[in-house]
C-alpha cells in the first residue's frame, strides 16, 4: 500500500528539444534533453542537418577545385582546413613548398586560429548570459583579422588561397606592417576578454566544476584541441608532429588541469596569447621576398597512387584529411576527420548530471562548428 501511495507522487521526466533552431546550439545542432526538474538525466544529440556531402563532391573535383569545398567544411577557420587539404595533396604529389610560402601559411593559420577563438569567446560569452557584449568584443577583433585576410586573398571567409605547392599569389607588400597592426588590436581584445570573464565571480561560479571530463575519457572519446588539453593532455599536432615551420618556433602547449568548462575557456584564452607570440616569431623569421610556388607546376596536378592521412592542429582540434589517390587528377576518396564530431561525442558524458543551463554551457565550451561536424 505504501508503494502504491508513493507512486502517486512519482514525477515524470520531461523531454525538451533543444534545436535545431535554438539560439545556443551554434548552428543546426539538435539535442533532446531528458530532464528531471532542472537536472539533465540524458542527452541525445542529433546531427546531420548541414550534411552536404563535401567528401563525395571532392571525389568528382580535381585538386584545385576541391579547395573551395574544404573552406566550407570549416568556415570559421578556413585557412586551417585548406592547409590540411593542400598539405595532403602536396604529400601525395611530392611537392616541395617554398620557405616563404610556409611562413605565410603559418601566419595566416595562426591568425585564423585567433579569429576562431575570438568567435568562441563571443559565442560562449553570450551562452553564459552576458547580453551581447562579448559577441561584439569577439567580432571586433575578428573583423580586423578578416579585413586583413580580405586584403590578401580577396575573400573574407572562403579564402581559396592556399594551393597545392604554395599560395595562389603573393601577399600584399605591406603585409608585415598590417599583421603587426592587427596583433596590437588583438592584444587589446585579449585583455578585454580577460577582464570581462576570467575573474568574474559569476562566470567562475557558472563554469568551474561544470562539464567535467577526465583525461582518460577525453582520450577515449577521441577529443582533441583545446577541449582535450583542458583535461590535462598535452596533445598538439603542432608540437608532436611539427608541420610547416613549427619546429623552429618556440611556443607552449597550453593545458588545463580540471577538464571543466572554465579550463576549456581558459585554455583558449591562453592559446590566443601563444598564437600572438608565434606570429611575432614568424614575422621576424619570414623572408621579405622569395618564391611562393615551386618553379615548375603542372597545369593540371596529378598525383601518383597512394594515400595519406594528414593532420594539422585547427582551432577546434585535429583537422585530418585522409586522401586516397589512384593516380588521377582528383581524389579517389577524401575523408575529413572532423575534430568537432569527435568532441561532440563526449557531450553526453560531460552534461549528464548537470543543470539545463550547464548543458548549454558545455555545448558552448566545446566550440562546435556544425559545418565541420556534418561536412
Amino acid at each position, binding site marked *: 500500500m505504501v508503494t502504491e501511495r508513493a507512486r502517486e507522487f512519482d514525477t515524470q521526466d520531461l523531454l525538451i528539444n533543444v534545436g535545431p533552431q535554438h539560439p545556443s546550439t551554434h548552428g543546426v545542432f539538435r539535442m533532446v534533453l531528458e530532464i528531471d526538474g532542472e537536472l539533465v538525466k540524458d542527452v541525445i544529440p542529433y546531427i546531420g542537418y548541414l550534411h552536404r556531402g563535401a567528401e563525395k563532391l571532392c571525389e568528382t573535383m580535381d585538386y584545385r577545385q576541391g579547395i573551395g569545398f574544404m573552406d566550407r567544411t570549416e568556415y570559421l577557420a578556413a585557412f586551417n582546413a585548406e592547409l590540411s587539404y593542400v598539405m595532403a595533396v602536396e604529400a601525395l604529389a611530392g611537392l616541395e613548398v617554398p620557405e616563404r610560402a610556409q611562413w605565410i601559411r603559418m601566419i595566416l593559420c595562426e591568425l585564423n586560429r585567433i579569429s576562431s577563438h575570438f568567435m568562441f569567446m563571443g559565442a560562449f560569452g553570450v551562452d553564459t*548570459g*552576458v547580453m551581447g557584449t562579448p559577441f561584439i568584443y569577439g567580432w571586433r577583433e575578428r573583423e580586423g583579422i578578416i579585413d586583413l585576410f580580405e586584403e590578401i586573398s580577396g575573400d573574407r571567409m572562403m579564402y581559396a588561397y592556399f594551393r597545392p605547392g604554395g599560395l595562389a599569389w603573393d601577399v600584399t607588400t605591406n603585409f608585415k606592417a598590417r599583421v603587426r597592426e592587427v596583433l596590437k588590436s588583438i592584444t587589446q581584445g585579449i585583455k578585454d576578454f580577460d577582464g570581462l570573464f576570467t575573474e568574474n565571480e559569476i562566470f567562475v561560479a557558472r563554469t568551474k566544476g561544470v562539464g567535467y571530463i577526465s583525461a582518460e575519457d577525453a582520450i577515449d572519446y577521441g577529443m582533441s584541441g583545446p577541449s582535450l588539453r583542458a583535461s590535462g593532455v598535452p596533445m598538439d599536432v603542432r608540437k608532436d608532429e611539427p608541420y610547416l615551420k613549427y619546429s623552429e618556433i618556440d611556443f607552449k602547449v597550453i593545458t588545463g588541469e580540471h577538464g571543466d568548462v572554465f579550463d576549456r575557456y581558459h585554455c583558449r584564452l591562453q592559446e590566443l596569447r601563444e598564437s600572438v607570440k608565434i606570429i611575432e616569431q614568424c614575422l621576424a623569421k619570414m623572408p621579405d621576398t622569395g618564391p611562393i610556388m615551386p618553379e615548375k607546376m603542372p597545369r593540371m596536378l596529378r598525383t601518383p597512387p597512394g594515400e595519406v592521412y594528414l593532420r594539422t592542429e585547427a582551432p577546434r582540434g585535429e583537422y585530418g584529411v585522409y586522401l586516397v589517390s589512384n593516380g588521377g587528377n582528383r581524389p579517389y576518396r577524401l575523408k575529413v576527420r572532423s575534430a568537432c564530431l569527435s568532441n561532440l561525442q563526449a557531450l553526453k558524458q560531460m552534461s549528464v548530471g548537470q543543470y539545463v543551463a550547464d548543458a548549454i554551457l558545455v555545448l558552448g565550451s566545446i566550440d562546435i562548428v556544425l559545418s565541420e561536424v556534418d561536412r
Partner: protein
Amino acid sequence: MNTDLFGLQVNVWADAALRLQLIVVFMTVVVMGLIWAERRILGRFQQRIGPQKTGPFGLLQSVADAVKLVGKEDLRPKNADPWTFELAPFLVFIPIFMGFVIVPFLVGWNIKVLELGLLYFVAISSVNIVGWVMAGWGSDNRYAMIGGLRAAAQSISYELPLVLSLLAVAMVAGTLNLDEIVRQQGSVPYIVWQPMAFAIFFIAALAELNRAPFDIPVGESEVVGGPFVEYSGIRWSMFMLAEYAGLLIMAVVGASVFLGGYAWPLGEELGLGWQVVLVGAKAGLIIFAVFWIRASLPRLRIDQLMGYSWKILLPLVLVQILVNGLVLVYGWSEAILGVVGLAGVVALVSITGRAANRPRQIPARAAALKGEAA
C-alpha cells in the same frame, strides 16, 4: 463628491479616471524612453551605435516598435489553455501599474499618499508572479513552463530580502509612508545609515525584475524567452511594458527610500523643476547601473541564485534588522548604523567572492546520474 486634483475640484470618479489616464500616458512614454535608452546605452557599452534611423538619435524607435507590435497577429498555440494564456499578460502588467499609486514622484505629485504605502508596494509588486506562472503553464510549451516555474521560485525567494531591506529603512524612519520617508531625508539620505540594506535592495530588485544577472526565467540562451516564448504582438509588448515599468517603479522607489527622492540634501525644498531633475538623476543612476550590469555580467544558474538569496542575502538583512532594532531600542548613536552597514557591505562582497570561488567538485548527484546513463 468632489476631490482635489492638483488644485482643481473634480468628481471622485473623474479624478480617478484622470489620474489613471495620467499614469498610463506617463508610464508608456517613460517606458518607451527607457527602452530607447537601454538600447543606446547597451550600444555604447558594446562599442556600437544602437538605434539611430527613426527620428533624431533613433528616438522614435520605440514608437515604431510599438506600432509594429500592435499591428502583429496575436497568435495562440493550438493546445494552449485559452484563459490562462490570454489573461497572463494582464496579470503581469496590472500589478505593476497599480504600484504607481503610491510612488512619490515629486512633492504632492503622486496618485495617493497611503500611510502604509511601502507595505502596499511590496504586496502589490509580488502579485505578478501569478501572471508569470500562468504564462508559463498556459503556453503549452516546455521552455515556457520551465521559465514560468523558475520565475515563481526566483520571485518568491527574492521577495523576502527585498521586503526586509525596505523594512530596515522603515524601522529607522518609523513610518511606512513613502512621502514621509522621503521628507525625513532632507539632510542625510538613508543610504548613509543603511548601505547594506541598499545593496541588498538593489540585488533583490534586479532579481524581482528578472534583469541580468538574474534573468534566469527568460534566459535567452537556455529557455529562449521563457514564459513569453509563445507570445506575439500586443500581448508580448505588454510583458515588455511591464518589465520596463517595473524597472521604473523600482528605480523611483529605491531612489525615494534610500537616496532621498526629491529631497535636496542641503535641506531646502526645491522648486518643481529642480525636483524633476533630482528624482530623474537619482532614479536614472539606478537605471543606468541596471543597464551597465546587463552589459557586463553573465547569468547565474538557478540553484546558485536561490542559494544566494537564502544563504547570503537573507541572513545579512536579518542581521541588519536586528542591529536596527538594538539601536532603536537602546537609543544608540546613528553612527553605529552607518558603521555596521558598511561592515555589512564588506561582508556581502567577501562572502559573495568566497561563495563563487569554492573548490571545484563534481556533485554526487551528477556522478550517480552518470552511472545510470552509462
